[in-house]
């Protein structure tokens, strides 16, 4: 399977929602990307590490600032995606409701992105603008656009859910909480207009038997996102517990 085909699988609404597929694609994508997840000295598992970290990689940093930069990276990705959707005047046949939802999502993600940049720069150094690769997305195809939105929103929800425990400052935690519930509102709306199953907004593919949504650690999230990000990212200094 080529890299392109793997990305297709990720975006196929029929298959892309499965966590197992998601993971599989993420791992494959990472191998071909510039994503650095583990510091060399700490890696004793073999296989996944980058023996020679890219000196040009963008370092997310450590501690709370690292987590904020991580969130900033994800918000950049989402904002860039919805901006591209709007630059393409949505997709042929988009309904007024679909246009309204997608343009609202674009505004929200831009508001998140711009906030993180300003907030991080007020105390440390925000990572630069990341270069994205949306070549796997057919912006003229409804299923491709909404399928990608679904992947990004579900990924965002799981990212904030997983990162909460890594944040040490309560004020940052609350801000992350203010954002994650909006990402979840997005995910539900996109699923609702894309999927025929009326329960998809909080479907059994993302909510478990305890009624809990997905939580993913940064390494897992960045692997899944890496096929859309060209800029090499060094996440090896992020807190892991």
């Amino acid at each position, binding site marked *: 399977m080529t890299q392109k085909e793997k990305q297709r699988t990720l975006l196929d609404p029929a298959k892309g929602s499965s966590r197992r597929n998601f993971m599989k694609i993420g791992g494959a994508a990472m191998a071909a990307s510039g994503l650095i997840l583990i510091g060399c000295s700490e890696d004793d598992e073999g296989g996944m590490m980058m023996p020679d970290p890219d000196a040009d990689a963008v370092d997310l940093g450590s501690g709370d600032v690292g987590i904020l930069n991580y969130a900033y990276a994800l918000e950049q990705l989402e904002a860039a995606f919805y901006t591209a959707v709007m630059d393409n005047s949505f997709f042929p046949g988009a309904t007024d409701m679909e246009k309204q939802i997608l343009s609202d999502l674009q505004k929200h993600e*831009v508001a998140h992105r711009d906030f993180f940049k300003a*907030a991080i720069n*007020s105390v440390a150094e925000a990572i630069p603008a990341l270069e994205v690769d949306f070549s796997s997305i057919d912006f003229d195809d409804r299923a491709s656009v909404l399928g990608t939105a679904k992947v990004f929103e579900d990924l965002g929800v799981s990212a904030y859910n997983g990162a909460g425990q890594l944040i040490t400052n309560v004020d940052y935690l*609350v801000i992350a*909480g203010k954002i*994650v519930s909006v990402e979840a509102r997005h995910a539900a709306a996109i699923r609702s207009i894309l999927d025929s199953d009326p329960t998809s*907004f*909080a479907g059994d593919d993302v909510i478990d038997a305890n*009624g809990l949504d997905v939580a993913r650690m940064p390494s897992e999230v960045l692997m899944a996102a890496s096929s859309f990000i060209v800029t090499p990212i060094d996440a090896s200094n992020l807190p892991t517990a």
Partner: protein
Amino acid sequence: MNIFQFIQQFGADPIAEVPSQQFTSRREAFRMLGASGKKLAAVAVPFGLASGLSQTARAQSMESTVTDTLNFALLLEYLEDDFYRQGVEKGDIPTGKDLSIFQQISKHESAHVSFLQTAISGAGATPIEFPEGGFDFTAGGAFPDPFASGNYQVFLALSQAFEDTGVRAYKGQAGNLMGNATVLTAALQIHSVEARHASEVRRLRGEKGWITQAERGTGMPEATDAVYAGEDNVTQGGVDVTTITTVGADGVTEAYDEPLSKEDVTAIASLFLG
């Protein structure tokens, strides 16, 4: 000065001041995950809160903060679970798409009740009982009977109010759960489910899935004012977000959901106690 600078300047980060040796033990404590009293105590100690107290007292304090918070969440879940159970059983929900949606939501609220009861018991505390007098979903007559024939729109309005309240309630308690990574993560995982529910119910009512300014939407009586109070906030971390982005105030308020205090949530829930 915004909050980020404030934190930087005063180093108001209790974890950062913990010696590295204790960092290790905190990580190990988090790894134990389970919620027995002893494990919670192990998590609590390195935070060094309430330094005037003995270690045991500190541990008990942290432990009771977590279980008190979970019991507070359980009250809300009892309310939601009871509401949807009655709605699905005897309400006037149209069959087909709408009923499927509320069966799914009901399933989740029921699971949240069980999950919280188990978590509280596992931490050595006692889950609160379902309220003795039950719930009064007319809020003392402020609403018509949401389950009566022809009152589906009332049911929908109340559902929206409960879900949007739930989102704000969990968000407001996140800080109280920071001492226990497992519990915090689970609470966040419930929080986003409530937000998914809220979005869906709002859209069923013809609203946006997100909250513009502090708008309640149609058919929402004044009794629900408190549910949306403060949602029009545009200042995050001391920064007026409208000054650093091209997105206007409506979009900025939509992009951030606001927390509610335990007191405010309790006041809202109390409207519906029988």
